[in-house]
C-alpha cells in the first residue's frame, strides 16, 4: 500500500521574502537577528529563545531558522526523507508564491524556487510530489496565469535517458497572503484544474501561518467582487451585510515595538482564509461534470479542532461567519462531498487533537475526506517530523474502520483519491 504525507514545505530562506523576519519581530530586532543567525551558534541561540518566548509564530520562525537556512531545497528534502522509515513514502512539497506579501521579494525569485524544486524532483521522481503555488499577482491576467500553469504542468522533466515525469501534480494557494480564492484571475486556472482532476490545496488555519504585511493593500482588498457570484463578497452573505472590517485594535506593548500593524494584519488576513469564502467556488464547480478537488488544509487549526470537539464557543472571530472554522470545513465537506478534503498538517503536532480526528473518522462522510500531513518544516520546533509521524501513525493504526484503519484511510486511500489526476494517474 502506498502512503503519503500530503503537506510539507522544502523552500529555504533564499526562497522566502527578504524581510520575512519582520513579520514576526520589530524591524531593529529583525535586522539584528538576521545577522546573528548567519552563524550556527547565533542560530541555535535564537531558535531556543523564539521557541520558548515567541509564541506560535515564534516557533514557526524558529523552525525556519533550524531548517530553512539549509543550503538548498535538495538538502531540506533529504533531511525530511531521512526521517521516515518507509522509503517508498511519497511526500507532497508545496511551493509558495511569497513575492507580494509586504515583506519584500525573495532572493531567488519565485521561478527560482520552482527551478530548485524541479531539480529535487529530478533526483527523487518517486518520492516527491510537487504542488505549484499560484497567486493572482503572479501574472498579469487570468489567461496568462492559466497558460503558465498549464505549460509548467505539461512540460515533462527528464530523470534519465529512458524516463521523464510530470514535474507538478497539484496547485497550492495561500490566501492570507492577500487574496480570496474566488479571485477572478484564478478562475481559469481552477477550471483547467477541475477539467484535469488536478487537486488544489489551500492554507486554512485560523490565525496560523504567514500573512500579508502591507496594511493598505490588505485593508483595500477585503471586499472585492466574487467572480462566481458576480457581486461584492459581503453581499454574497445577503444584501446589506456589513463588509469585512480591518482590525484596528491597539496593543500598547506591540505599538511601542512597532508591531501593532503586524498583529492587526495577521488578524485582518483571516478574512481571506475563512472557509465560508470558498462556498461560491464549490457551488460553481458542483454544477460541472468534474468538480474541483480542494483541500482546506489544517482542519481550521488545532484550537478550532479542539473547541469544536469539546463544543466550546470560539469567541469573536475575524471572519464573516462567527463560527468555528473546523465546523465550517465539516459543513463544506458534507455539502460538497466530491470536492472538499482537509488535512491535519501542523494541527497533528498537538497530540490532544488526535482523539477528535479519530472521532471524525467514524463519520461515513468525513472518513473519506481527512488526509495525513505534517507541515514539515514549520513544525520542527513543536515536534520533530519523525516523532510527529510515528506518534500519529501508531495511534491511527490502532483505530479500526471496517477492514482497514484510520492510518490507511488518511495516509493512503484518501490522499490517493485527492491526488489522482492526469498528472498523477
Amino acid at each position: 500500500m502506498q502512503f503519503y504525507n500530503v503537506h510539507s514545505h522544502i523552500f529555504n530562506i533564499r526562497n522566502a521574502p527578504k524581510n520575512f523576519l519582520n513579520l514576526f519581530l520589530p524591524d531593529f530586532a529583525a535586522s539584528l537577528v538576521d545577522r546573528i543567525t548567519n552563524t550556527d551558534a547565533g542560530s541555535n541561540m535564537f531558535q531556543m529563545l523564539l521557541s520558548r518566548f515567541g509564541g506560535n509564530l515564534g516557533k514557526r520562525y524558529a523552525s525556519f531558522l533550524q531548517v530553512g537556512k539549509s543550503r538548498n531545497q535538495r538538502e531540506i528534502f533529504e533531511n525530511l526523507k531521512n526521517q521516515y522509515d518507509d522509503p517508498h513514502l511519497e511526500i507532497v512539497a508545496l511551493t509558495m508564491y511569497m513575492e507580494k506579501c509586504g515583506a519584500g521579494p525573495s532572493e531567488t525569485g519565485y521561478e527560482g524556487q520552482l527551478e530548485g524544486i524541479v531539480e529535487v524532483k529530478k533526483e527523487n521522481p518517486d518520492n516527491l510530489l510537487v504542488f505549484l503555488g499560484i497567486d493572482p499577482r503572479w501574472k498579469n491576467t487570468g489567461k496568462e496565469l492559466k497558460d503558465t500553469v498549464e505549460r509548467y504542468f505539461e512540460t515533462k522533466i527528464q530523470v534519465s535517458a529512458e524516463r521523464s515525469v510530470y514535474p507538478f501534480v497539484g496547485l497550492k494557494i495561500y490566501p492570507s497572503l492577500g487574496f480570496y480564492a474566488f479571485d477572478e484571475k484564478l478562475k481559469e486556472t481552477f477550471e483547467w484544474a477541475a477539467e484535469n482532476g488536478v487537486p488544489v490545496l489551500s492554507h486554512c488555519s485560523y490565525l496560523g501561518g504567514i500573512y500579508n504585511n502591507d496594511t493598505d493593500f490588505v485593508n483595500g482588498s477585503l471586499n472585492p467582487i466574487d467572480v462566481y457570484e458576480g457581486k461584492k463578497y459581503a453581499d454574497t452573505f445577503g444584501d446589506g451585510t456589513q463588509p469585512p472590517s480591518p482590525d484596528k485594535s491597539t496593543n500598547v506593548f506591540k505599538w511601542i515595538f512597532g508591531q501593532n500593524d503586524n498583529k492587526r494584519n495577521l488578524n485582518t488576513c483571516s478574512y481571506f482564509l475563512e472557509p465560508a469564502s470558498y462556498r461560491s467556488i464549490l457551488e460553481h464547480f458542483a454544477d460541472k461534470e468534474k468538480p474541483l478537488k480542494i483541500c482546506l488544509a489544517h482542519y481550521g487549526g488545532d484550537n478550532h479542532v479542539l473547541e469544536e470537539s469539546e463544543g466550546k464557543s470560539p469567541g469573536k472571530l475575524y471572519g464573516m461567519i462567527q463560527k468555528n472554522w473546523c465546523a465550517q470545513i465539516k459543513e463544506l465537506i458534507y455539502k460538497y462531498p466530491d470536492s472538499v478534503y482537509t488535512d491535519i498538517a501542523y494541527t497533528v503536532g498537538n497530540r490532544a487533537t488526535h482523539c477528535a480526528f479519530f472521532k471524525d473518522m467514524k463519520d461515513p462522510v468525513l472518513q473519506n475526506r481527512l488526509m495525513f500531513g505534517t507541515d514539515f518544516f514549520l513544525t520542527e520546533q513543536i515536534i520533530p517530523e519523525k516523532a510527529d509521524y510515528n506518534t500519529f501513525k501508531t495511534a491511527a493504526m490502532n483505530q479500526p474502520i471496517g477492514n482497514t484503519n484510520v492510518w490507511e484511510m488518511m495516509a493512503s486511500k484518501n490522499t490517493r483519491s485527492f491526488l489522482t489526476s492526469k498528472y498523477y494517474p
Partner: protein
Amino acid sequence: MTLPDIPILSTAIAIVISWALYALFCSYILEAWVQIKADRGRFMKNYMYQQLMDNVNGINWADGIYSHGTIDLLSRDPKKPSNDISPKLFAETLIEVVGSSHLVQSGIVSFKGPPTAYQSPLLRSFKYATLILNTSDVISLFRQGMNSAEVKASKDINGNINEAEIHNYLVGYFENWFTEFTQRLTLWYKKKTRETLFYLGTIVAIFINVDSLQLFDFYNNSPTAVAGVTRFYKANPNWGSDTVSNTQLNLLASTLDSLVKETKLPVGFQHSVFKDKTFQQHVKSNWWLGALKFLGILISGFAASFGAPFWFDLLKKATSKP
C-alpha cells in the same frame, strides 16, 4: 642621513611603526574570523545573487549555479560556499543552468518564433532561452554572448555554422565577464575589509588602549621607547611582507607583548578606560580628556583600516637610504 636620523621625525616614525604593528594585529584577528566564517565565499555568493537576479523573469540564475553539482560540490560546508570558482566552470555551468531550466524548457513548447537549428541540445536550449525570456539586464547579457559567439564562429561551404566554435566562443564570453566581475569583486571586498578593520581597530583599541594621541605624547617624552620600537622594526623588517611564515605569525602576539614591556608603552588592558582609575577620576572633572581619548582611539581605528602593508611600505620608503 635618513629620515629617522632627524630627531623631530623619529617620534613620527615610532608612531608609524606602532600603527603598522597594530594594523597587522587587527588583520590577523580579522583573517581568523574570515576563515571561520568563510567570509570571502559568502561575499562572492551574495554578490552573485545580487548581480544575477533577473527580476523581469522572476528568477535568480545564481541560485541555479550554486545548486548545480559542479559548484555545490566545491564547498566544504553548506554555510561555507567556495570563493574559488574558475571562470570556465562558471561559464559552462551558467550555459547549462539557463538552457535546462524548466522556465525555458516549458517556454520552448509554446514558442511561436522560428525554430533554432542547432544539433547540440545545450546550444539549442541556450539559444531558445535568449529568444523566449523577457528582456532584462541579465538576459541582455545572455543575448549578447550568444550573438557574439554566432558572429565569430565559422561556417562550412554549405553555410552550416560550426557548433563547437560557437560553444567555445560562448564559454569564452562568459569567462571574460566572470573574470571582470571577480576583479571588481576583489575591489569591493577590499573596501569592505577596510571598513571592517576600522570598526575592529576601534573596538580593540578601546579594550587595549591603543590611543594614538597618548602614544604620540609618550614617544615625544621617551626617546628610549622610540629607540626600542625603531630597533624592533629594524630587527624584524619582514613583518609586513607577504612572505612572512606561519611560525612568525604565531609569534606576533608574544613578540608584541615583550615589545610593550620593554618600551613600557601605555598599551594593554590594564591601561584601558575600564581599568585606569586615574583616567576615570580625571575624566569626571575634565570631559575634554574623554574627548581626546575618543579621538586617539578613532585615529588608531583609521590606522588599522589602512592595513599593515600600507604602513610597512611607508616605513620602507621613509627609512631607506637615498
